[in-house]
């Protein structure tokens, strides 16, 4: 089982994501200008500021040559995980419902939050049980999730911020969502920064572990 971690100009969490993946399977970086996914079994779109986040977060990255291949991979059922900026890119690409807006506080938030597993039936959460609480950091300015009314069925809510811990004003405390088929997921918290007890929590590893459990 092999992960591919996308590197855009402006990505900054791709190495942490790569190291997180390598705890559970093989993993390599994928360059944004290539079209070849190198036969990986799962794709991680990491955090950062892809293409400078010009225009809107994730808006330009969505048109990179590699993303065209990632979109095709996702439409064929391949698992794709978008973290933070990666979540924004997947929303802009139309692979996930909704969009990310500036935090209601208008401030950058950087803190450890508890998120609750709402749907353990996805390829990203099958190492978890329903209502498991994961301690994972968030760090973003544009993380307020919004989906127009009627566009986000409850079963597509994968993670919610624990009560009282919503850091950005996200609708319904939503922290992570998946697509209708369940093979594409995005979340604002950073599981790749929570894979070792040394940094406070290893809970984020459960997402990578889940993906590694199931060959694509």
């Amino acid at each position, binding site marked *: 089982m092999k992960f591919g971690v996308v590197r855009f100009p402006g990505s900054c969490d791709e190495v942490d994501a790569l190291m997180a993946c390598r705890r559970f399977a093989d993993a390599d970086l994928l360059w944004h200008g290539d079209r070849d996914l190198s036969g990986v079994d799962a794709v991680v779109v990491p955090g950062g500021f892809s293409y400078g986040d010009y*225009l*809107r977060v994730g*808006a330009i990255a969505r*048109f990179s040559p590699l993303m065209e291949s990632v979109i095709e991979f996702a439409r064929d059922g391949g698992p794709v995980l978008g973290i933070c900026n990666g979540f924004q890119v997947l929303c*802009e690409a139309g692979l996930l419902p*909704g*969009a990310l*807006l*500036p*935090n*209601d*506080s*208008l401030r950058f938030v950087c803190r450890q939050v508890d998120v609750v597993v709402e749907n353990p039936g996805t390829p990203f959460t099958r190492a978890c049980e329903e209502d498991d609480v994961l301690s994972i950091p968030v760090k973003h300015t544009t993380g*307020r999730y*919004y*989906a*127009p009314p009627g566009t986000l069925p409850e079963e597509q809510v994968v993670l919610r911020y624990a009560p009282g811990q919503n850091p950005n*004003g996200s609708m319904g405390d939503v922290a992570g969502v998946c697509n209708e088929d369940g093979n594409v997921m995005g979340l604002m918290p950073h599981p790749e920064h929570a894979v070792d007890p040394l940094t406070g929590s290893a809970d984020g590893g459960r997402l990578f572990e889940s993906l590694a459990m199931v060959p694509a």
Partner: protein
Amino acid sequence: MLIRPKEGILDPQGQAVERALPALGFDGVQNVHVGRLIELDVDDASKVPQMCERLLANPLIEDYEVVELNGKDSS
């Protein structure tokens, strides 16, 4: 193109500006929204709405308005 946050979606930037104006003595200001302006020269203006739909705006969260300045140097 004038691009605005869609009506009904919380616009904290607009709210912050709305709160700042009275502090300077400008009373009676309501419904402040902050969006963005994109200027471009284009041979075929009929394609502009498509450009907005596909890239320049995100129709889920933003409304856009195309203002055409026919043959005028808008500077």
